[in-house]
């Protein structure tokens, strides 16, 4: 009797669980592939035309803008509609003293991304929040008040723009320490440094759904004189 009942219970049937496992796994994979196609479409780099539109409308029209975003002013502002901060594309501004053509900008970004991997940035810093936790997150480093006009980094490196301050720092980081924990000299050349700055500026324009949250607080605190740089 007991034996009979046991055989009739689907819950202890291997074949039920095997078929269910196959179905659930198969379907989850299909959904993931579909979602991936959808996401790929949304995170491919935008075009120069997208950027012109974004600059006119003061918002971002593609989640990951094209390389020529380095020719524009970038901001990170609270959006009421979305409930978090979003990048905002502003007016044009020179980058290392000039406007970069589509081709030049793409080449520079390529050099920068490649250098970021060759120098292993990710094993001290986080990029988009992923990586190591020994040094500050670089997602919005380009927008960080420490590097802006009036900030400690431009004064320390004796430069007048964010890009120059960053490039100079990157070539000789241990000469411009901000903390006992210093960035080591990684043999970054002048060209590579420019590429890296382009990479950082580009990354700051990516729509990260509000990460890091409250970044503007850092800006406010900085304006009232709070800073850790010695």
């Amino acid at each position: 009797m007991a034996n009979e009942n046991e055989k009739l219970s689907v819950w202890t049937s291997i074949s039920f669980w095997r078929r269910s496992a196959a179905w659930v796994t198969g379907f989850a994979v299909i959904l993931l592939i579909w979602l991936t196609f959808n996401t790929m479409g949304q995170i491919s780099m935008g075009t120069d035309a997208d950027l012109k539109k974004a600059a006119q409308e003061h918002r971002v029209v593609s989640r990951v803008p094209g390389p020529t975003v380095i020719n524009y002013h970038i901001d990170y502002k609270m959006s009421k509609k979305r409930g978090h901060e979003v990048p905002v594309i502003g007016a044009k501004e020179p980058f290392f003293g000039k406007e970069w053509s589509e081709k030049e900008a793409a080449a520079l970004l390529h050099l920068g991304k490649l250098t970021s991997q060759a120098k292993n940035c990710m094993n001290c810093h986080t990029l988009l929040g992923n990586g190591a936790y020994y040094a500050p997150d670089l997602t919005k480093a380009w927008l960080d008040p420490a590097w802006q006009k009036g900030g400690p980094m431009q004064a320390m490196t004796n430069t007048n723009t964010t890009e120059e301050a960053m490039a100079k720092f990157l070539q000789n980081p241990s000469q411009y320490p901000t903390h006992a924990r210093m960035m080591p000299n990684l043999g970054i050349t002048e060209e590579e440094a420019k590429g890296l700055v382009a990479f950082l500026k580009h990354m700051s324009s990516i729509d990260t759904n509000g990460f890091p949250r409250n970044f503007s607080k850092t800006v406010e605190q900085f304006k009232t004189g709070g800073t850790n740089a010695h």
Partner: protein
Amino acid sequence: MLTSIKTNEFAGSESKKLAMMYFRVAIILFGAQLLMGLIAAIQFLAPNFLFEVFDFSVARMVHINALVVWMLYAMIGSVYYLLPDEAGVETVGIGLGKLAFWVLTAAVAVVVLVYIFIQVGPGKESTIWLINEGREYIEAPRWADIGIVVVVLIFYWNVFATYMKGQKTGILTVLVADLLALAGLYLAGMFFTDNISMDQYWWWWVIHLWVEATWEVFVGALAAYGLVKIINAKREIVEMWLWIEVLMLFGSGILGLGHHYFWIGTPEYWWEIGALFSALEPVPLVAMFVHVLYDWGKEQGIAKAEGKPGSVMKNGPAMAWIVTNAFGNFLGAGIWGFFHTLPQVNIYTHGTQFTAAHGHLAFFGAYATILIGMMYLGVQGAYGIERMKATFKSKMAIFLITFGVIGMTIALTIAGYEQVLVERAELGAGWNAFFVAQDLPWYVQAQIWRTIMGVVTFVGFIYLVWDLLTIGKKEAKAAA
């Protein structure tokens, strides 16, 4: 363990000998991993330590690469070990398997030497091909990637051909399918793109779909094998559980991938997908935990009822590590993972010491434990002994390593908490906020405790090696 190769045991199975070769390299790399972790931990406290000689980035890269590689070695070893038992026939291509072992080991040695002595290269394609790829966990340069693919293909062919030739148990069926996915996923990490969002998108395919899908299923299969082997658990029941685990692990883990797509430029709809699917990931881990303890209790009960005195356990240390695995997997992956898996929490904890706390307990609890357990099974098999009891050294090893890792995890959790509240919530992230939080006394104290607990872990590791080298020798002699 080292002498086992000469004792020519295993009832002549070459596959098991090959397994021991993999285990030996694995344990050496585990040691290297811990040493590198200690260097990196000291650098948090004394940033001048080895500055511009052996920087944090280098120590950390070797730390986590050694971690991934030793686990892959131990996983391959485990498969070669259980294959003849499960299939009922000897592994088909042992010669090729040995060749692959030596090729892989030579490649790993070259990669590590380059990491340590060359460290970084110029911003050119050649660096990515020859020195390092600069992508966390999968830094291995492209030439090595290709080598790894070839070696893995050989390994997979061996497993597949043996499976086709021998008995097709449920455990083997799951393993064969799972290994194919595991190996295939590596390809997703083998390309370069200028687009950092795209880069991270595919990078997580490798990392997440490994540790939270394919590796977990692998562990489910290992635990099933271990239970049958060590306490004579009933195969039908173990295999039914295995299919339930596959269902739940893949059902939650595959789309749970979304919890890494909250902030990398990917659309907002991932918030919901990532949140709810990954929130279910702990469920199978609870199930696995219950399963292991339940079976153990049941088999012991049956033995008692049948009037057999003593423990049903044929391998004390292996079983102890498998039980630790059941706990650790549930705690490290299940609880610590769930802590930060909802976007509402993750927006603050993303990329803090909190993540590191989870990473340590999860990798240790879910993988290190059971793989060490497999090594003990290997030793038992090598000496051909019926029953292997835990020694004082086995107990010190498991106690100190587990205590050390839990200690590190608690310390890092506290550090992470500080960091989340001060750097992220109070100061709103950014360069200055980061360093203010790093200097907080409570944060620094947590880093000190992490380092102390790291040393405890390392002492436990020494006991572990000592034990693996000596355990079972006496029994083997007595039997001979």
